[in-house]
C-alpha cells in the first residue's frame, strides 16, 4: 500500500519540480538577455491552455499513441529514481534499466511525429536520435564508472553508500573526471540550447513539433518537465550523494540543472555533426581518463 502511494507520488512530484525547472530555465534565459521573464505560474498556464484548446488536430492513432508513450514512459521512469523518503521501484531495476527505459519516451515521440507525415518532423527526429547517439556514448561510460566504483547498479544503494560515507565518498569527489564528463553531457541530454538543432524553428519549422498542437503539444511540454527533472535527479544521485532531505535534495537538483544550462545558454546552436564531434571528443576523453583513474 505504501509502495503504491509512492508510485503515484513520485511522478507527481517529478512533474511539479519539472514545471518549476522550466520556469527557472526561462527566467535564467530572460535574465541573460536582460528581460524580466515570465510570471511564476506561466508553465501551468501554458499547460492548461494547451490542453483546453478548442482546435485539437490529430493525425491518427499512432500520433496519439506516441504522445501517450512519451508521457507514460517518463511516468514509469520516475518510479525508478529514488528521492528522499521514497525508494519506489529502485530495487527492481537499476541504472541500466533506467537508461533504457528513458529511451521509450523518445521512441514514442518519434513514432508520433512519424505518423504526422511531415518531413520537417521526421528530419527533427532524425536529428534527435543522432543527438541521442552523441550524448549516450560518454554518458554510458560515466554510468559504467559509477556502477563499477560502487559495485552495484542499484540507484538506492549508490545513494546510501554516498550518504553513509559523507561528502568524501560523493561521486563528485571520488571520481571528479567522470563527474565532469557527466556535467558536459547534461545540456545535450536535456535537449536545450545549444543542442536543440532538432527543433530549429527557422529551418525545419520546429521539427518534431511542427504538426503538434493543443494537447499533443501539451504532452510534449509535460515530457519536457519530466526530462529536466530526470536528468537533474540522475546526476544528483550519481555524483552528489542524492538527497538527505527534501530541501537539500531540491537545492542540489536545481543547481545541477541551472549551472550547466547557464553556461550552455551562452553558446550558439551546434549542427548535428558538430554536436557528435563535440560529444565524442571531450566528454569521452575525459570519461575514459576518469575510468582509468578509478579502475587502476
Amino acid at each position: 500500500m505504501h509502495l503504491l502511494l509512492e508510485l503515484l507520488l513520485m511522478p507527481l512530484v517529478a512533474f511539479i519540480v519539472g514545471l518549476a525547472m522550466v520556469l527557472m530555465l526561462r527566467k535564467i534565459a530572460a535574465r541573460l538577455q536582460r528581460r524580466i521573464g515570465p510570471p511564476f505560474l506561466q508553465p501551468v498556464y501554458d499547460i492548461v491552455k494547451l490542453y483546453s484548446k478548442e482546435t485539437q488536430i490529430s493525425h491518427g492513432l499512432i500520433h496519439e499513441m506516441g504522445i501517450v508513450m512519451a508521457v507514460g514512459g517518463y511516468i514509469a521512469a520516475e518510479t525508478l529514481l529514488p528521492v528522499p523518503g521514497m525508494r519506489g521501484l529502485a530495487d527492481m531495476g537499476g541504472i541500466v534499466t533506467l537508461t533504457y527505459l528513458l529511451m521509450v519516451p523518445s521512441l514514442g515521440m518519434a513514432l508520433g511525429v512519424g505518423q504526422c507525415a511531415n518531413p520537417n518532423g521526421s528530419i527533427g527526429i532524425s536529428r534527435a536520435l543522432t543527438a541521442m547517439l552523441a550524448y549516450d556514448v560518454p554518458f554510458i561510460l560515466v554510468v559504467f564508472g559509477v556502477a563499477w566504483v560502487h559495485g552495484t547498479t542499484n540507484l538506492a544503494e549508490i545513494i546510501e553508500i554516498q550518504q553513509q560515507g559523507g561528502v568524501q565518498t560523493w561521486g563528485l569527489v571520488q571520481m571528479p573526471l567522470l563527474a565532469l564528463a557527466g556535467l558536459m553531457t547534461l545540456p545535450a541530454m536535456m535537449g536545450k540550447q545549444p543542442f536543440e538543432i532538432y527543433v530549429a524553428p527557422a529551418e525545419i519549422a520546429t521539427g518534431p513539433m511542427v504538426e503538434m498542437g493543443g494537447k499533443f503539444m501539451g504532452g510534449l511540454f509535460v515530457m519536457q518537465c519530466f526530462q529536466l527533472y530526470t536528468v537533474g535527479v540522475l546526476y544528483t544521485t550519481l555524483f552528489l550523494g542524492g538527497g538527505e532531505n527534501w530541501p537539500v535534495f531540491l537545492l542540489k537538483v536545481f543547481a545541477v540543472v541551472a549551472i550547466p544550462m547557464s553556461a550552455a545558454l551562452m553558446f550558439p546552436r551546434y549542427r548535428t555533426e558538430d554536436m557528435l564531434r563535440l560529444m565524442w571528443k571531450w566528454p569521452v576523453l575525459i570519461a575514459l581518463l576518469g575510468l582509468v583513474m578509478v579502475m587502476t
Partner: protein
Amino acid sequence: MLDTLLLLSLFSAGFAILAGNRSMSGWVLTLLYGAQLAALLSMSSLGYISDGGTTIIESSYTFTLLGFSLHWQFDGLSWFFALIVIMAALLSNWFASGEWSQRYREQGGSLRMFYSALALNVLSMLILLASGDFLSLFIGWEFVSWASFLMMALGSDKAARYAMRYLVYAFAGAMAVLGGMALVYVQAGSLEFQALREAVPGMSASSLWVLVLLFASGFGVKMALIPFHLWQAKAYAQTLGPGAAFLGAISSRMGLFAMILVLVKVIGISQLTRLQLVFPFFNARDLLAWLAVLTLIFATFTALRQHDARRLLAWHGIGQGGYMLLGIMIADDLGSAGGLMHVFNHATYQAVLFMTVTAVIHRTGTADLNKLGGLVARMPLSFFAMLIGIIGLAGLPPMNGFVSKWLIYRSLILDGSPMLFLAAVAGTLGTILSVYKLIHNMFLGQLRVEYEKLDEAPWSMMFPMMILSVIIFVTGYFPGLVLDWVNAAQSVAGLPVLEHTLGGVASDKGGLNMIWIVSILLFGFAVGTLILFSGGRSRRVHQLDNYAGGHFLTADTRYQYSDNFYPGLMHLIGPLYRKSFRWAERGLLSSVDSAALFMQGLYRQTQPVAYLLAVLVLSMYWILV
C-alpha cells in the same frame, strides 16, 4: 523419444518432397511441425534442471563407420536450440501456407522445393543438434550447410548467385572444421568429445591455438562472424520471405551452437583463457569477445545504411549474433545466460520482422525503404507486429530483447570491461536509429497514392505474426520462463548457472524484475492515456492537410523524408565506410583466380618453353652448387 522426433522430421521432409505441390500440403506440413513440437515437448524434462542435474536422451540409432561409432543424443543445450528451430519452422511454414503459397505458385515458383527446403533444414538442424561426437557433428554440419544453401538458392537468379557465394564460404568453413577434426584425432586418438576433453589440458599452447582458431573460424562462417560476414546479408535478403524468416531466426545460430559445444563444453573457457596472445592481458577468450563486438558494431552500422528492408534486417541479424557470442565469452552466469537467452529472443523478433516485411512485399511488391511510407493507415496490425519486433530488436523494455541485453550489460559491468560495454551499448544505439528508420520509412510518414487501397496482410500471415508478438511480450514480462531453459543449457555447457526469478534476476548488487518494470510501464501508459483524453476532443485530418511552408500539398506531391535518413551522422562517420572487407574479399578471390590460372597453365602445358626453362635452371643450379 528422440527417435520419434527424428523420424517425424524425416517423415515431414519426405512428405514435402513427395507431395509438396498439393494445395493443402502447406497446412499438413504445419501440422507435422506441430507434431514435432509435441514430440519435443514430451522431452521437456531436458529443458529444466531437476535435482541438480540434467538428463540426456540418447537416440537408439548408432552407426559404426570405419571403426568410428556415430551416435546422437539430446541434452538441455540441444533441446533449447531445437525448440527454437521447430517453433521457427512451424510459424514460418504457417505463414507460407496461405495466400503466400498461392501467390508463389502463380508466379511460377515450385512449392515442393520450398517446403522441402524448409523441412530438410529442420531435419538437418535436428541432426546437428543431436550430434554426440565429432564425426556426427561434422556430418550434421555439412547437412545444415547444404540445406540452407538449398533454401537460399530458391529465390531469383540473384538469390542463386548469393547462395553460391555462401557455398564458397561454407566450404572454406567446412574445411577448417575438418582440419580441426583431424587435429583432434591426432591429439586425442579418438573423435569422442570426452577424449578431447581429457586430452586438452595436456596439449601444447600452439596446437590448442590452431585447434581453437580452426573451429572458431569454421563455425564463425555460419555465424557470419567478422571477417567471414560478407556472404550473409545479401543471401538472406534474397531468400524467399518465409524462408528468410526461418533462416534469419535460427540458421546462423547453428554456428553458435557448434561453437558452444566445442569451445565451451568440450574445450572449456578456462582452457581458452590459458591461450595468451602477444601481450599478457589478451587471450583467446578476449579475442573471440572482441571479434563478437566488432561484428556487432560493423554489422549494425552497415545496417544503418541499407535502404532495402530485408537487407537491413539481415545485417542486424549478423550484428545480434555478436551479442550472443559476447555474452557466452564473458562466461559468467549473467553473461552466458544473456547470450543464450538472446538466441531465443532474437529468433522471435527477427522472425516477426522478416514476416512483416514479407507481408508488406506481398501487398505492395517492394521492400525498398524509399518507395514505401504511411502504411500504418492500411496495415495497422502489421505495424504493431513490426513495432513489437523493433522494440525487441532494439532491446528496449518491455520486450524480451531488453532482458538478454541487460544480462550482458550487467555482467560486463561486474567483469570490469568498459570498452566492451561501450561497444555493446553503441551497438544498441545504432540499432535504435536503424529500426526507427525501418518502421518510419515503411509504416509512418506519407502514404503514397498507389497504396491507398491496400488491404491488411491476410490472416494466414497475421496469425503467426501475432503469436510471435505475444511471445516477445510475454517472455519480456516473465523472462524467468525462458531463463529456466537457459539454465539447463548453461549447466550442460559447463557454464555457471544463473539464479533467477520469474521476473528476472534478484541480486543485492542491482537486480532486475521485469514484472514490476513492465507493470509500471503499462501503468504509465494508462496514466498517459488519461492525460491525453483530459484534453479537448481532437479532430482527424487528412495527411495532406499539413504544414508545408505556405505551399499546398496535393496527392502527387512526395512529402516524405526517407533517403539518407541520418545525414548528420553520416557526415561524420560516412567516410569510415570503406568497404575494406569487400576489397579484401575481392583481393583474395583474384589471387585464388591467378593461382588457379597458373596451375592450369602448368598442367595443361600451354607454355612448354617455360617448363624447359625451369628444368634447365634447376638442373644448372643442381650441377653448379
